[in-house]
């Protein structure tokens, strides 16, 4: 087994994929967005409630590979309670890391999402990791 695969599928990621956080009925929240990766059929719906400019609640449901599911799970933990602006900035940082093919070092703020740095080396998997984040971004924009 090459080390590369294990760097991509760190225990952290596989654990989140198996027992995801933040899963729930997104439709209880006022802002929901559905995102689909047409090349593989992965899909996710992220719902949020924004109170006083901060994310006061989040739930998602989806079906997909371990990268997209664990990414949604890790994201849920990171954005809980932070402001719209902070969340948008975080999404921007995550996107930048994912688009860098692994060359951009994750910032502190990305927390456990730093685990996807190795995924960024695999062009075809970047969309998987981004799926939940793109859905959240759409929610945040709609909530503005």
């Amino acid at each position, binding site marked *: *087994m090459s080390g590369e*695969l294990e760097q991509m*599928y760190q225990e952290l990621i*596989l654990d989140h994929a198996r027992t995801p956080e933040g899963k729930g009925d997104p439709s209880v929240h006022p802002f929901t967005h559905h995102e689909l990766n047409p*090349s*593989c*059929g*992965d899909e996710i719906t992220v719902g949020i409630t924004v109170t006083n400019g901060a994310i006061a609640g989040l739930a998602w449901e989806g079906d997909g*590979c371990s990268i997209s599911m664990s990414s949604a799970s890790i994201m849920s933990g990171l954005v809980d309670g932070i402001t719209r602006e902070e969340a948008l900035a975080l999404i921007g940082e995550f996107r930048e890391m994912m688009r860098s093919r692994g060359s951009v070092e994750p910032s502190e703020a990305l927390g456990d999402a730093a685990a996807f740095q190795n995924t960024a080396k*695999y062009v075809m998997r970047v969309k998987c990791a981004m799926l939940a984040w793109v859905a959240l971004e759409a929610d945040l924009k709609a909530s503005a």
Partner: protein
Amino acid sequence: MPTPLGAPLRADFPFFQAHPRTAYLDTGATSQRPETVIAAEADFVRHDYAAVHRGSSMSTGEATSVFETARERVASFIGAGEREIVWTQGATDALNMIALGIGDASVGLGGDRFALRAGDEIVVTEAEHHANLIPWQRLAARTGAVLKWARVDERGLWTIEGIREQVTGRTRLIAFAHVSNVTGQIAPVADVVAIARSVGALTVLDACQSVPHMPIDVAALGVDFAAFSAHKMLGPNGIGVLYGRAELLDELPPARTGGSMIKVVTMEEATFLPAPNRFEAGTQPVSQVVGFSAAIDYLERLGMDQVAAHEHEIGQALVEAVVRIPGVRLVGPAEGEPRGALVSVTVDGVHAHDVGQFLDDRGITVRTGHHCAQPLHRALGTPSSTRASAGVYSTRDDVAAFGAALAEVRAFFGADR
């Protein structure tokens, strides 16, 4: 003496020289190309390149005859007449050309015999590749025709009874794949053609997964149209074939219009050449045609009977390699039954993309996803599957590597816990 296929051919393929340890099991998507094909194309461009079919100069003449010679080669390769071979961008383009042409006929732009009226029926199967489904959906929407389909069972298989149930006196066309790119099912072409003929319907054969892998005689099969792509049969990208019976092709309206396909053009209207040229608007991909011709040469040297025998063996080996792995579900025909040289599986608890990533890490190139067959996957109850598909250069070692790696997938992702 027959050429032994598999490993001995690898020396002919630069890809395998560059990637000696790769088990390339993705020929169903696109094949690797022998150096003869790559060099034929590049050398043609270096030395003999000139536009085809326009002007009178010597060099243009040479290019034109190369082009027409290649057409004869492909025609004889599939048992067609020369005028029955239309160059297209690929199989998708070819299938669209038929559907769009029928659409034009239906609004009075020529080829009345093809015109569809509201309530006429088009029959396909639920297993079709999107390229042999969406063009018919759009044609139905354009004309008011009704699209019907033979359903597949939980293994993705359709039956001739399923077709028969859909066909009525209003059926005008039946389109189906010769070999499914997901299940590997081999269609009972003669039976479908018989049903079609009994109601006067046309038949369209998606031959993408058959022409590269077995001897084909379109006249003997009796289909009216067929489509396939060079890039799945050791040839270049960007070139494919629309086969049609000459009398049909001469009447089908050309959906793509422009230079080199016309007789007389006024500002008011244009008249078109007979087939095949009426479908070949614009500058044609002549260097790709040269490469395609070299690919046919290569396959003919191997002998298509040999190719079919080799791939039958690999196909069965692929099935054997997967059926006994716990948590792996085989799609398509059961062990021992005829199938194309490919196998698709789903892995309990592991998403196909993760399976693919794992195999890729082991140097095994397979394809994961819906393989452009979403309705089929919906019927299978999964959004995606993992497919291994073989070609002339595939070996039992490739199959063994695939089987061994597949057996470890669930443990790696903890799906066996």
